[in-house]
């Protein structure tokens, strides 16, 4: 794996971790405010789930170096 590819993978991992932890925290916040009487455990649970999912994605990314990552391009209507 070249240095640039390794750097791109680390960038992807960090961005993924930020998004997933933030999403888990946000969902935990919503559920804490709506159903669980402003307790703290939904926030911790959501953040922890996001962190775990990000870690799992990073692990798969580093252990499968031959998978290509493409960009999604919307097809134009003819």
């Amino acid at each position: 794996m070249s240095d640039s590819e390794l750097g791109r993978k680390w960038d992807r991992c960090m961005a993924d971790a930020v998004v997933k932890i933030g999403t888990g925290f946000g969902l935990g916040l919503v559920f804490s405010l709506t159903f669980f009487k402003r307790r703290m455990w939904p926030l911790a649970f959501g953040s922890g789930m996001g962190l775990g999912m990000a870690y799992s994605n990073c692990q798969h990314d580093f252990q499968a170096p031959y998978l290509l990552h493409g960009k999604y391009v919307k097809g134009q209507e003819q």
Partner: protein
Amino acid sequence: MVPRVWSLMRFLIKGSVAGGAVYLVYDQELLGPSDKSQAVLQKAEEVVPPALYQFSQYVCEQTGLKIPQLPAPPKFNFHIRDSWNSGIIKVMSALSAAPSKACEYSREGWDYLKERIK
């Protein structure tokens, strides 16, 4: 009768808020593959600052307040990654060359002492 309807309404409102949040996460695939998350983060970086600026302008127009213009933050031309990498490389090359350098310096020191003793 009215408290029951009110509690039912409250439950429906809370359920719709929570369900909307879950649907938003599912629709934007925030908990999906890392490519999508990176794309969402890039899109947010492009969209959020202009939106915040427009919102602040709208608030200023409505309330008549003027937000003071903050000076631009200083730009640092310091690349942490490059300096960290070059530091690691220098430390490792110094460690790998340390035994041979130590032998050479000790031999030179020994020769110097022998010269002085003569």
